[in-house]
């Protein structure tokens, strides 16, 4: 998917207090990698999975006394949608770059610390991949950096 045609949009409103459900919902939306289009309006490229993910968040919003509606939409202005896609891609790219930088920095650490870092960074890559809707090129570089770190370990003596 290089450019999303159809988007699934969640328009939601939650009471300001208590603030816990609001921040819980926002954390979940962040983890999904949504584009924020406005106050209480977020979007994801539409597929059955993203649609379901936003449906359950909508349910959570209504469970907490808020209002939520889901929409399928298509941008009329392709420039504006490129800006949105660019913003989503840049956010994911920055996350990948942080992983790659950390993998590079860990190369001089001792073996035990390297092994822990490999396990942690692989999990982190998996998380980022879940919100990488436009197959950001930095992903491949980050994966290579982590696997290079892992290879440094298996090349040495096994314990």
């Amino acid at each position, binding site marked *: 998917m290089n450019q999303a045609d159809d988007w699934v949009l969640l328009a939601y409103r939650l009471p300001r207090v208590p603030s816990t459900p609001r921040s*819980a919902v926002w954390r*979940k939306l962040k*983890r999904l990698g949504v584009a924020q289009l406005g106050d209480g309006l977020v979007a994801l490229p539409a597929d*059955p999975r993203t649609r*379901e993910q936003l*449906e*359950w968040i*909508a*349910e*959570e919003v209504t*469970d907490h006394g808020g209002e939520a509606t889901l929409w399928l939409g298509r941008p009329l202005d392709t420039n504006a949608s490129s800006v949105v896609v660019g913003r989503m891609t840049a956010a994911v790219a920055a996350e990948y770059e942080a992983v790659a930088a950390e993998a590079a920095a860990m190369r001089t650490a001792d073996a035990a610390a390297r092994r822990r870092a490999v396990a942690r960074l692989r999990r982190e890559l*998996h*998380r980022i991949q*879940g919100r990488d809707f436009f197959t950001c090129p930095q992903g491949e570089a980050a994966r290579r950096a982590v696997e290079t770190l892992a290879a440094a370990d298996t090349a040495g003596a096994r314990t």
Partner: protein
Amino acid sequence: MKWATRPGVHVDRAACAWLIRRFIDPDAEFVFPADLAAIPAGATPFDMRGAALGHHQGRCSFETALEAFGLDDDPALEEIGHIIHEADLADERCDAPAAAGLDVLIRGLTLTSESDHDTLAITSRLFDGLYEHTRRQLMTGRPPA
């Protein structure tokens, strides 16, 4: 009894269907309407927005169903609940390494299934095996060989 869920079943719906047929209603009949309004009269909806057997309090539908059916005292089912939760939501609330594999297998299966009934026929065998494996592991404290 009739039970209704959304078409294109994935891990949470497949697991709920298995739970219903194995522990609640051996003659369960499953239908797959696209939204709550299209549910046939008398059918119980599950894993659909607005259904009691859905995602509530951060839990997936399978976990909600365990409690609703009074099956939450079975430690093997509770453990399977953690796996389904991670496979469906991946929010790292539970430690369930099997979740990632289960998610991929069932997603792949739905790509080649002829129908949702076809998917459920296969996943029901999978969950029978997962239940047995989990039960034995809990009994002996080790994964069965």
